[in-house]
């Protein structure tokens, strides 16, 4: 008899916006518009649409929950409303680490998949039963340098029209592992020189 493995993912709580986003929630097809700054000040601005095949929410869970309570059914004036949601871009592990896996051998790959590289975060594949769309997701990878924000109302609206899709979320302690590593990466300290060694 084998011991069941601890769960890494939970199924996304709601297909649309009736439940708050969760920290560590993975969404697919999140789109955001980037202003072409050359058109600033003109009568009509131009925007480039950026499509994120995968992305992960990194805003604090409690902030998202409190925001949702005062945002729906109609947004109230409240300091609990958060203006934007923080995301990190997510790639497939193959896209991000394919070259390392192919060319640098098992040792380099082990270092990445054990999350020993401060800038990157590897996530195991998502089984279909943990995915709200029952399709499953491949092994994923996050580059902590590639974060972005979207206005909170816009995120829920894009979910509501079923453009962005809520798939699954990381459960404890895998969630805290991700959020603490992200926070550490953002708060890292650059030294003028490394410590010298004789």
């Amino acid at each position, binding site marked *: 008899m084998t011991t069941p493995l601890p769960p890494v993912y939970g199924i996304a709580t709601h297909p649309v916006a009736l439940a708050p986003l969760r920290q560590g929630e993975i969404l697919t097809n999140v*789109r955001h518009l980037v202003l072409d700054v050359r058109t600033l000040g003109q009568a009509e*601005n*131009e925007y*480039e*649409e*950026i499509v*994120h*095949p995968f992305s992960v929410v990194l805003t604090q869970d409690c902030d998202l929950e409190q925001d949702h309570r005062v945002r729906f059914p109609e947004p109230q004036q409240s300091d609990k409303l958060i203006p934007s949601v923080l995301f990190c871009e997510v790639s497939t592990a193959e896209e991000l680490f394919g070259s390392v896996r192919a060319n*640098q051998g098992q040792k380099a790959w082990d270092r990445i998949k054990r999350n020993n590289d401060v800038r990157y975060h590897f996530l195991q594949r998502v089984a279909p039963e943990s995915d709200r769309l029952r399709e499953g997701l491949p092994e994923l990878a996050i580059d902590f340098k590639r974060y972005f924000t979207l206005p909170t109302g816009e995120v829920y609206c894009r979910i509501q029209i079923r453009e962005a899709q809520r798939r699954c979320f990381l459960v404890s302690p895998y969630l805290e592992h991700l959020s603490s590593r992200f926070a550490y990466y953002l708060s890292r300290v650059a030294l003028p020189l490394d410590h010298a060694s004789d």
Partner: protein
Amino acid sequence: MRYLLGFHMFGTTDELDLNEEDTIRLICHALIHRLPDQGLTEAVESLTGLYEFYTAPVEPPKPLLPHSRVKGRITGSHVRPVFPVTEEE
């Protein structure tokens, strides 16, 4: 060096009739009067800060700029780029 602290109250009655602000001022006088010398520098610094804060004229809030709507159009759509890791960092 010690001082004697006294107050002269005007009026026609022997009873003290102080409002809250005057009572607090009296308490402050008494506290400073009894404050050990080593606390005087901190006290004067704190009081100077309070004095400057509360006597500075308060600027009226600036009116918010009105919201304006600007037309926009999407000129293109593309998947975000990926920057593969090419060497172990």
